[in-house]
């Protein structure tokens, strides 16, 4: 029960930073609330205070810079999906975010919340990680930038300090990458991913006129304690450059081996591993054909 529970509503980022620097009890941020309220209901000791950051306008902007896009942590999934440059060039991100929950959830839930919740099944994380996104973490006196890949330390666990907040997600511009995202869930909508794969590929023309792969990023969701990059499969594809049947098959085999899934109430280890390979194969086919 929420006895002696506090809800604080800072009006600005500065106020929020002040609050978290001085608060003396375990707290959580309330951005969209779609994770935090569910958890609090299941487990009242999840937090003793909520800091409502949902009204802080400065966190809710998307900005275009010279070589990056900066997504405020309070940007709602719905807003991200409507942002034209993403629709144009970040297909993997759009595919993933449009699969999150339902329209109702996407109208409330934020990108910062998806990252802050640190679920290995968080669907926006894979594409962001594949695009080498970074997060800006601020406290009252500090400001640091951490690669998203280094941000998570386990299920629900991150490097965020108690007096820090995620302010931004910095997404490098990557016009040359083609990307895609696929997942398997227990049903077609409002489902938590059993496994998800993001693939981003860059191509260059070979001197002989054929297409060569010159950039590969693969991220796997729900198959390890955190979302991970599949570095071995990435390296293999990059070295081989051409996507022959045999190369693709081997990459799929490698990616299945890189996954470290568990058996739980949603699925089992073997299936999850193998599906990483299947989904990667599907994405390679899709991206190679789409060109």
């Amino acid at each position: 029960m929420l006895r002696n529970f506090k809800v604080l509503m800072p009006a600005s980022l500065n106020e929020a930073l002040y609050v978290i620097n001085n608060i003396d009890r375990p707290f959580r941020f309330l951005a969209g609330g779609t994770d935090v309220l569910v958890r609090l209901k299941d487990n009242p000791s999840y937090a003793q205070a909520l800091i409502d950051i949902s009204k802080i306008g400065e966190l809710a902007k998307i900005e275009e810079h010279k070589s990056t896009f900066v997504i405020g942590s309070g940007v709602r999934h719905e807003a991200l999906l409507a942002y034209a440059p993403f629709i144009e060039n970040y297909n993997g991100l759009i595919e993933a975010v449009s699969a999150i929950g339902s329209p109702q959830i996407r109208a409330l839930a934020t990108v910062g919340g998806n990252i802050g919740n640190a679920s290995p099944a968080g669907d926006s994380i894979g594409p962001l990680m594949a695009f080498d996104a970074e997060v800006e973490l601020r406290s009252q006196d500090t400001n640091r930038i951490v690669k998203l890949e280094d941000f998570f330390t386990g299920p629900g666990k991150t490097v965020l300090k108690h007096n820090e907040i995620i302010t931004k997600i910095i997404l490098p511009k990557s016009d040359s990458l083609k990307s895609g995202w696929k997942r398997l869930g227990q049903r077609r909508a409002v489902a938590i991913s059993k496994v998800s794969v993001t693939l981003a590929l860059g191509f260059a023309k070979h001197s002989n006129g054929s297409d060569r792969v010159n950039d590969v990023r693969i991220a796997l969701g729900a198959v390890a304690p955190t979302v991970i990059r599949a570095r071995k499969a990435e390296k293999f594809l990059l070295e081989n450059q051409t996507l022959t049947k045999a190369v693709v098959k081997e990459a799929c085999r490698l990616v299945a081996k890189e996954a470290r899934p568990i058996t739980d109430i949603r699925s089992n280890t073997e299936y999850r591993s193998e599906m990483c390979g299947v989904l990667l194969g599907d994405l390679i086919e899709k991206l190679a054909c789409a060109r």
Partner: protein
Amino acid sequence: MLTKKQNLYSVVGKKVNRVDAYEKIVGGARYVDDLAFEDMLFAKMVCSTIPSGRIKKIDKSRALKLKGVAGVFTAEDITGLNKIGCVVDDQPLLAKETVRFAGEPFAVVAAETREIAEEAAGLIDIEYEPLEPVLTVDESVSEKIKVHPKGNVVCHYKVRKGDNIDEAFNKSFKVYEKTFTINYQEHLYLETQGCVALPENEGITVYGSFQCPFYVQGAVATALGLPLAKVRILQCVVGGGFGGKEDVPSEYAAKAALLAYVLKKPVKLILDRAQDLMVSSKRHPMKMEYKVGVTKKGKMNALKVRVLADSGAYTTLSTVVLFRSSVHFGGPYVIPHVSGDIIGLYTNRVPCGAYRGFGTPQVIYAMESMINIICNDMGWDPFEFRKNNALKKGASSITSHKIKESCGLIETIDKARKESEYDKRKKEFDKWNADKSKRTLKGLGVSSIFYGMNLGAKGWFYDKAGSHIQICRDGSVTLCVGNVEMGQGAKTVLAQIASEALGCEISAINFTNVDTNIVPDSGPTVASRTTVMSGNALLDAANKLRKKLVAAAAESLKIKPGQVMAKLGKYYNIKDSHQFVSFKDLAGKCYLDNVGLSEMGYYVSPKVEYDLQSGQGEPYYVYSYATAVTEVEVDKKTGEVRVNKMTCAHDIGRVINPMLASAQVEGGVAQGVGYAIMENMVSEKGHIKTLGLSTYVIPTTKDCPEVKSVFVEDKSKDGPYGAKGLGEPSLMPVVASVVNAVSNAAGHQFEHVPVLPERIWEVLNEKNSSEDESEVK
């Protein structure tokens, strides 16, 4: 004759909009949790955390010290009897010495707020001596550990027909054998279980979400030690039941009533979703051993079945649910030699009970899978095979019930084939599947069912229904019946029946939710019986009223009563429809003439004769029938299934409302698809792990197929306007036909439900690797 009469109906058979739609859409409908009373307390149940154990000590002191706690009740605080079992007396209202499943309530708290009640629940200390639990039917049947002192068998139904079964198999041309298993299914009504109890008039009034207010009345009276007349049950708008609110709400209502009665304050008890999932009844998991013999000519000549059903820790409704399994395990077919044993077994798991289809979807899945195996093996056409064995007028079921009337099974088979374009699709699918480059495999699955109407031989004593109709002096009408609206559209269909019979406009009718002070015990709202039972009870009352109205109209119009017709608010001269008197004026006239326009109606289900020893006789007075055809697509690499289309042909006698009938079919399909391929209740060591909506996953609209529903109207002489029931038949063929379709796509008969992608993938993988090997060779 009938067609001529049919044309005369002005409301029955029409697509009338739901009479309760508007209030639900605008949020005006009042569910039990919307009710609030002054000084109301909130209750919370405290449940066992182990599947089996002896209670050594329960300590309430910490909870009682918490500010705002009004009371903590355990078994010793019960003023009446500590018993809740509705059929068999094996279940306490609150566990006293023993806990038999994880989730069994042993205490209940009342406090000033929901939050305090929840906190107090966590402060009640219980000490157990844990015992080794019985967790599977195989362990249970071995009787090594006894869940109850009398042993582990809850019930054992036998069906014996024809010769010695082994000899019969010797005469078969071919014999097929397979064992199937099937998991729980959770009802997952949108509205969780709940009620509010109010001390009133030295007795108690209970509001709630019930399928049988009369069961609740009995349970409350027993627990409080009150006469029935001091217990009044008022039905609220119900957010879904599906069988889960048949007997189960009695458990909660009796607890809330006890608190309210002793503490002399209103008490609200609403289960949260996790607790509801943990403690409320489920569909029985079963292990089903099937053996079927066929003749060269494609007739089934012998059937041997043994079913072990997991009844859980207490009997609840197992004995009646499994009676239904024992009648339906052979499907709607003629089989001369049958031996069936349906055995319900206690385990230290959650009690299982009523769920849409009542013990039949499981056995239908097994039986229809057998037929699929046979047809595939012999190259027999699945429709012709079913027709060749089908029940029809003059034929006898596996319980030797000779079918006398209203049997449209063969028409449903023909219609399902035609409307699904099966033959065309089959060719297309075969071609598709032959193309190895395709990512998916497509499959078609068929299943046929029959379903006994009403409560049948095992429940005939409960099989009655009452009604009350009152016509006010301005021509408006109040109706009250004993069966409930729980989302199925009962109010609309019953209003249509009353409007047709009374000759009033449907808009004149006002429904009063069930009130045990107004209508007599009408049994439960289950067994697809409401249209027939409450419909007939309404006809009984309406016909009495109509006689009075006709006499009054004849007097006004100066014609003979035989010349009066009534329709849509007008009583008119059959020879001259311009000559009429309005329903409203007639009501006014009767009022001034002191003609009472208030009547009770009553109806009793036709009596049936059945021998429980041999499982032979008439288990039910009549049956509904259905055939379903499903199209699926299976992803070869992921094992994911897409159910693309279902065509369902139902014989439900007269269709009172075609729109609601189609909606009922769509709902049944959605629930059946979930059961077949998605809903997976995971339990470990007697603890259910899927205690939320993110882990117990049911279909969304995106997972549901296109549904085409068609109807066969082979009218039943005992139904109102010839109607039979549809509530359960709508779900019953779904699981089997979906699983058959997936099995046909994958080339493997799936032996466990739900059929999950993980399993399909495994099967397809095994096939692939064996094909690869043969290529190498």
